[in-house]
């Protein structure tokens, strides 16, 4: 490999943000709005908001394979079990063949290397964590205690929620604290029936999924060019209305308005450059993914927002005399306690009746059933809990392939909506386990000469015990509603990573001996390096994590600027 070293002394900024996705966008927005000149480095290609959503307005007949996955595409997108190989959204996901990784134990590493990262393809379910989520580790002696509590995040949750725009319904539940909501989306008739049945017979609340879609845009949303959700449910092709929250639609436009944001694409951050004497970072070393040119950029503060595996890999790769095992790895915790949410388990059923009930529009959301296990007086033989996402919908013409019949009558039948079906899918908490980890293999390099990631992680006994409840409880709720042919399922091919909620590997903690980051997401022994994505998580909760990453990032950025002003960094 021929690397051209070109250290340009002119490339100095106040702050460098590595990654342009969910948290990188927030870091850039907050730091620029507080007056810093920020360089954002994105390892992938550039996607411009709206104009590069090239499939957003395509009709079904414009896709050669009409949504069916081609042999070539499936070979290029194996990490996702092929859902990312769809013609409409292929360009939003990383080609796994070109970006290989090693599975010592099976792991679905789903990536989106381009502007906006996974914020362009996320599921958009957006929930606050609850008080217990930040206390459970300490109470139960699992992992280490969080260095923060729910109350530390409350003002930051509020702050980011208003900007993001979250559609949902306030329920005043301690287990699922309310956010600042835009109007919630509607339920279908069988969903309302399920909600009422489960409330009456089992005293469990069901609410409409809280999703980051604008349903009543406020002036600060429209000022960025964002509009209300159009209920097309073509989200993974990119939203030309900017209705769902992504860094492209929201945080990056806000940061650009300050004229203090520079974005460089195709810039793979190889390592953080250390000033060992000062125990501070000076900048980063970057490889251009197309030209292989190596450049250096310098800054007073560095935010790593490259995604859980990406950010921790950069720390691991940043070795020096002071940090021979990776930047900030005095605790040997780097890469450990890899978590996700375990899913692909739940229950489904057929629904008789409701023939006159239907819905208009394609809802980009679902029901949400908050955690009820190991909550309040409920005690199970495992720790923590789970929630469900899911919903009821009517089948379309595609039911016809498996049905008997063909010809004129059959053809006409297919033009009418089919029977209702319902599915409840669990999302369970995964406990931190130091033996669930990833590391870098310096002997197996990718095409940029960088060590490949090796995954060595799996679900444990606690998760497996919980899955039985997820199946049975789901089935019981569907039965309580009187639905038919109830089937509880547990998918044996669901491995860690499929939740695309990778967490941990550079956890926050009070003690530098057992954690990588402090309570403001600073590397304990290198305080001008902040890591504010999923890698910083000390436990996983059972609710979707993005909102908490965003709140942590805004909070860390506020701290970084205050420390810079106080000349502490």
């Amino acid at each position, binding site marked *: 490999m021929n690397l051209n070293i070109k250290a340009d002394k002119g490339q100095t900024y106040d702050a460098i943000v590595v990654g342009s996705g969910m948290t990188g966008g927030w870091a850039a927005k907050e730091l620029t709005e507080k007056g810093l000149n920020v360089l954002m480095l994105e390892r992938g290609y550039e996607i411009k908001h709206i104009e590069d959503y090239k499939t957003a307005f395509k009709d079904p007949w414009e896709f050669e394979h009409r949504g069916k996955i081609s042999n070539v595409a499936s070979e290029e997108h194996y990490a996702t079990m092929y859902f990312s190989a*769809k013609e409409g959204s292929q360009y939003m996901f990383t080609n796994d063949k070109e970006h290989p990784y090693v599975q010592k134990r099976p792991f679905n590493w789903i990536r989106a290397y381009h502007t906006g990262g996974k914020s362009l393809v996320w599921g958009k379910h957006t929930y606050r964590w609850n008080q217990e989520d930040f206390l459970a580790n300490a109470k139960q002696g699992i992992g280490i205690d969080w260095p923060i509590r729910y109350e530390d995040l409350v003002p930051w949750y509020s702050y980011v929620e208003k900007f993001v725009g979250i559609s949902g319904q306030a329920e005043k539940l301690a287990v699922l604290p309310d956010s600042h909501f835009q109007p919630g989306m509607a339920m279908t008739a069988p969903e309302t029936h399920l909600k009422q049945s489960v409330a009456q017979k089992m005293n469990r609340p069901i609410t409409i999924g809280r999703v980051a879609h604008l349903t009543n845009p406020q002036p600060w949303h429209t000022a960025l060019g964002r509009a209300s959700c159009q209920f097309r449910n073509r989200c993974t092709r990119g939203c030309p209305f900017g209705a769902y929250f992504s860094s492209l639609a929201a945080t990056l436009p806000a940061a650009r308005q300050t004229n203090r944001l520079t974005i460089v694409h195709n810039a793979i951050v190889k390592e953080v450059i250390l000033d060992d004497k000062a125990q501070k970072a000076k900048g980063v070393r970057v490889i251009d993914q197309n030209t292989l040119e190596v450049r250096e950029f310098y800054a007073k503060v560095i935010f790593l927002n490259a995604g859980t595996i990406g950010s921790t890999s950069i720390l691991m790769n940043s070795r020096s005399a002071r940090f021979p095992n990776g930047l900030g790895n005095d605790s040997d915790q780097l890469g450990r306690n890899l978590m996700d949410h375990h899913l692909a388990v739940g229950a489904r059923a057929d629904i008789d009746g409701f023939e006159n009930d239907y819905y208009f529009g394609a809802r980009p959301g679902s029901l949400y059933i908050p955690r009820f296990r190991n909550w309040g007086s409920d005690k199970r033989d495992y720790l923590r809990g789970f929630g469900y996402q899911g919903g009821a919908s009517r089948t379309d013409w595609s039911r*016809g392939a498996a049905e008997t019949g063909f010809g004129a009558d059959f053809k006409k039948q297919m033009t009418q909506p089919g029977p209702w079906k319902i599915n409840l899918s669990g999302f369970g908490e995964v406990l931190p386990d130091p033996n669930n980890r990833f590391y870098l293999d310096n002997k197996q390099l990718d095409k940029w000469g960088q060590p490949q990631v090796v995954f060595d992680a799996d679900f444990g006994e606690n998760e497996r015990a919980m899955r039985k409840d997820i199946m049975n409880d789901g089935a019981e709720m569907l039965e309580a509603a009187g639905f038919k042919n109830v089937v509880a399922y547990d998918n044996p091919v669901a491995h860690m990573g499929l939740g695309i909620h990778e967490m941990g590997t550079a956890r926050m903690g009070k003690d530098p001996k057992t954690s990588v980051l402090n309570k403001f997401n600073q590397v304990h022994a290198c305080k001008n390096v902040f890591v504010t994505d999923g890698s910083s998580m000390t436990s996983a909760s059972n609710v979707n994590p993005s909102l908490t990453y965003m709140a942590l990032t805004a909070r860390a950025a506020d701290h970084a600027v205050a420390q810079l002003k106080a000349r502490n960094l």
Partner: protein
Amino acid sequence: MNRRDAVTQVAWILGGVLSAPTIQAMNRWQELGLTSTHRTGTFLTETQHEIMARVAELIIPRTDTPGAIDVGVPDFMEVMLRDCYKKPALDTFLTGVDGLEKKGFLTLSTDAQTATLKQIEADTQKDSGPSFWLITKELTLLGYYTSEAGIKASFDYQPIPGKFEAIKINPGQKDFMYGNQA
């Protein structure tokens, strides 16, 4: 639970945004195995193409709305067989076409053709795994109900619904399509 169910459930879980056709595609994909052959050019012989055109038209005939041939299903089948199927499903499919060719399918009366397909359908239901009939029917339905003429003739096509609400419908009312399957 078999692998096909498993993959379907994965699709459900991943945001619930995957449409039924996609899930079907994923199911199919899982069943087909992974020997790679990316072919170019025409997949079927001229006679085989004619047979499949006739079969598709019997599944979705021209009525007061266009039929399978009107919207180009036969050519669509060729593309899909070339790009999206592998052995052993392709062999199963070709064996099925071959069987029809040997029966002189194109020379049969319409009633005899229909009876032949009904027999194939009845035999298929005893099978598991990808069969000639299932592949044929799936490709015909996909090709028809996602074509421009097929969608516009069959459904209330709403590419920008603008709202989501629970509604009442009348018996026989056309389904809505939103064009979000791909």
